[in-house]
């Protein structure tokens, strides 16, 4: 069952091939037995999932249910879940149980989806390797000595390892697309404002955007149908109808113009990754598309601009974690300053502290103009590059990341080397554009991703373009060798109840 896609599982539930309770048991059992290696879940909500599955089965028996009814999935542990610990990968929120649901969580609950648990992530979504999580790193199911990417590494690894058919994720500078590429799955970061940020713990508010991850574009389209909504609780959410993203999946690509930015193929790009991307572009030519060289002249400024703007916003967003109202509080504070200093020193990890310091510095008197204000000007230039490009082309393509998954610890001592992993994904967030990663090859037996960047609110077209590729190729169907070689114990063994790490 676990090798089926979300769309296939939904059909199986409706045809009576299996029940949601059976399906949920199956995935819970896999998590129980395999996730000790991958560490992709922080919290598994077995009891709640089975109750949701039983309710879904009743709904399914009546018929006329939403596509996602009874389908298991997982939420990145950045989305607040009422009554279920929401840690954001941090010691700071290790005991935090929200009294409310994120809008995204509500949307999936209303559709009848079954939530298996909360997935691991870089602390406060700050990282590209999942090494900054308080709950330990996630292992890439393709090669467990390698990182799964970040910050949504738990969601990506869980899907790759067939521990869940789908998961939510968030992307501030590449946190959906990079782990999707490194784990060989499909992930979409929608246009800024397409998915509500209510209840999604903020890293950098002007860049954060939630999006779906699954095994292929068709499943991502199904998920986005439910995930996207206008939400009056989020002032930056756009009031705009949500189309049926599955309706146009099979549209022909004749006449499509694909822009290929020269800046995404320069120094630092692994030649084998480049070859995989070029092969994918040839495939698109076969499908009727035209390739056009374009230039995004300010691309080289996106990483520095991002690493001013994102930390600046984060430095304020994370001020609320002060040990006063919720979250980690140090023992026996001597006075107010001691309470603040020790609670935050103990609650936050190194990368989070580094970014708070950088952000506070960039905003401080005497430095604001040179850093923050300058970065905002650069951001505008980067956005204008894209606006100009989309006057010539329908979609932009390139590599998602310069390299396949790297080994643990290989970049740990050099934060800048780590930041450069996001060199192709960051500009999209700065411009607020939708971006996507789909599997397009293997390098050193590890998956690599093709990145699709669309125009504002052009998700339906992007999903169509991705889907057509996946009908011609089977990169997205490859499973990590490690998961095909394990034998599971009898599924009838009662699942460990409650939470496991």
């Amino acid at each position, binding site marked *: 069952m676990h090798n089926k896609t979300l769309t296939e599982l939904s059909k199986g539930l409706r045809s009576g091939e299996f029940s949601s309770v059976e399906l949920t048991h199956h995935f819970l059992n896999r998590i129980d037995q395999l996730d000790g290696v991958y560490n992709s879940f922080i919290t598994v909500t077995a009891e709640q999932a089975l109750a949701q599955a039983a309710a879904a089965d009743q709904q399914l028996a009546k018929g006329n249910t939403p596509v996602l009814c009874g389908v298991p999935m997982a939420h990145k542990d950045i989305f607040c879940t009422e009554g279920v610990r929401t840690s954001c990968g941090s010691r700071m929120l290790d005991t935090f149980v929200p009294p409310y649901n994120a809008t995204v969580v509500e949307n999936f609950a209303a559709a009848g989806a079954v939530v298996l648990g909360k997935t691991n992530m870089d602390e406060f979504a700050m990282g590209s390797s999942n090494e900054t999580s308080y709950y330990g790193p996630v292992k890439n199911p393709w090669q467990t000595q390698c990182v799964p990417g970040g910050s949504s590494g738990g969601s990506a690894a869980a899907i790759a390892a067939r521990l869940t058919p789908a998961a939510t994720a968030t992307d501030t500078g590449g946190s959906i697309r990079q782990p999707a590429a490194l784990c060989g799955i499909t992930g979409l970061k929608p246009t800024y404002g397409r998915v509500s940020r209510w209840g999604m713990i903020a890293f950098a508010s002007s860049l954060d955007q939630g999006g779906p991850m699954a095994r292929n574009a068709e499943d991502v389209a199904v998920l986005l149908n439910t995930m996207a909504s206008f939400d009056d609780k989020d*002032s930056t959410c756009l009031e705009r109808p949500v189309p049926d993203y599955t309706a146009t999946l099979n549209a022909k690509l004749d006449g499509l113009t694909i822009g290929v930015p020269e800046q995404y193929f320069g120094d630092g790009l692994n030649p084998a990754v480049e070859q995989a991307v070029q092969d994918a572009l040839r495939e698109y030519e076969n499908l009727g598309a035209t390739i056009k060289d374009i230039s995004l002249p300010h691309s080289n400024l996106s990483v520095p601009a991002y690493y001013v703007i994102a930390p600046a916003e984060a430095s304020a967003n994370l001020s609320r974690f002060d040990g006063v109202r919720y979250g980690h509080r140090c023992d026996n504070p001597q006075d107010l300053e001691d309470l603040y200093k020790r609670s935050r020193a103990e609650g936050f990890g190194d990368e989070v502290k580094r970014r708070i310091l950088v952000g506070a510095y960039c905003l401080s008197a005497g430095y604001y103009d040179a850093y923050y204000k300058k970065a905002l000007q650069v951001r505008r230039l980067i956005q204008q590059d894209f606006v100009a490009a989309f006057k010539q082309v329908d979609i932009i393509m390139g590599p998602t990341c310069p390299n396949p998954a790297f080994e643990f610890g290989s970049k740990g001592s050099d934060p800048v080397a780590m930041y450069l992993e996001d060199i192709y994904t960051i500009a999209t967030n700065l411009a607020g554009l939708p971006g996507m990663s789909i599997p397009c090859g293997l390098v050193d037996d590890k998956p690599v991703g093709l990145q699709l960047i669309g125009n504002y609110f052009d998700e339906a077209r992007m999903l169509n373009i991705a889907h057509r590729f996946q009908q011609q190729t089977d990169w997205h169907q490859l499973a990590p060798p490690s998961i095909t070689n394990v034998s599971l114990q009898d599924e009838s063994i009662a699942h460990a109840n409650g939470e496991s790490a």
Partner: protein
Amino acid sequence: MSWETVIGLEIHVQLATKTKIFSGASTAFGAAPNTQACAIDLAMPGTLPVLNKKAVDMAILFGLAIDAEINLVSAFDRKNYFYPDLPKGYQTTQLDKPIVGPGTVEITLADGSHKNIRIHHAHLEEDAGKSLHEDFDGMSGIDLNRAGTPLIEIVTEPDISNAEEALAFAKKLHGLVTSIGICDGKMSQGSLRFDVNVSVRRPDEPLGTRTETKNLNSFRFMEKAIAKEVARQIDVLEDGGTIRQETRLYDGDTDSARSMRSKEEANDYRYFPCPDLLPVVIEQNHIEALRASLPELPEARKKRYMADYSLSDYDAGILSDDASMAHYFEASAEVADDAKLAANWIMGELSAQLNSSETDINDSPVSAEQLGGLIVRIKDGSISNKMARTVFEALWNNPADKSSADDIIEQLGLKQVSDSGAIETLVDEVIANSAQQVANYAKADASKRPKMLGYFVGQIMKASKGQANPQQVNEVLLKKLDALI
């Protein structure tokens, strides 16, 4: 050589919205701690602000009331600092693009002269919660009910020259914001709070170093704090010292002030645009609709009182400046059907009682209807002015008692006897019992007689237990005595 004082004010005005500026929690005053703070006010993770349109409209109304420019695009910024009653660790405020641009407020001074005080700008922001340092045995309590209450902060140019002008400005502003209904004006509940920036200099010299005294929540405290700070600065300078730029705290209870922090210790607030809120874009026709809805301003009200009620400039000014005072006056004048008498009573007996008991007119134990009813009985001669004061005192001292003036008159048996038959009987009795005095009266020279009436009147009033209408007594007595001569 003399000193010149330069004062600028920053005024925090709590807007009278039902809910908070960025959440749906209630803004009502006085609830149990932390019962009016929702997840947004508590800055729970993942929560987001949504701007209250009503607060924006109220800020615009203020701008229109002072003839200010309304900025069609304004924006919110984050002001970063750590404090337990600031849940997000930043205050959402407007730094670079305030909603209200420059405007003017005209004040009237005691000598009748006028002066314009320029407003630099007014911006929208959220209030913080309260830290409670007592009752927690070495710890502090936090009450977040106030957190997120909408404020406009009004910043003046340094156009104010002394405490008197500052006070006149503060009262004028109080009247304005209450008249247009954007603030309840309750100073004791912190609805208006003043920060005063004070410096002194020799005439024609550049501006001196200023200090800021924060959070003054009564007119009297503001006046005293300014006087104290001006005197302190002059003392320091005349002793050859220098003024340190600092923030000061004034304690009204002890009439003392102390330094809170110097410029060097000041926070770097690291302002930057709030990414959770879009810029506020206002359509010109929305402004025009608000302008059309603007209620009568104190200035217009004053002119109306002078024209319609023939009140003096001074009386009209006092009654029209403050919205609550004006409402009280108009309500009591309507019941009494006599604006002049209502004005006299409000500025006399009522104001004296309110001032001596430090009571806001909104909390007056005597309602406008009660006072109006009392005036009706003065006018129709039912009671004397002296009796009226007794009735007023009774009304004042029994605020819970909803009795009308008539009820009190009845209870105290104060009703003036104006029944002519009853008065004639009283007069006849007294004349009959005063044969000697009548004889003396008859013999006396006509010019001496008026003085002799006092005896008879006294006897009659005594017999009536003070309730006979003195004017009627005089008339009847005169008629009867003359008939005897």
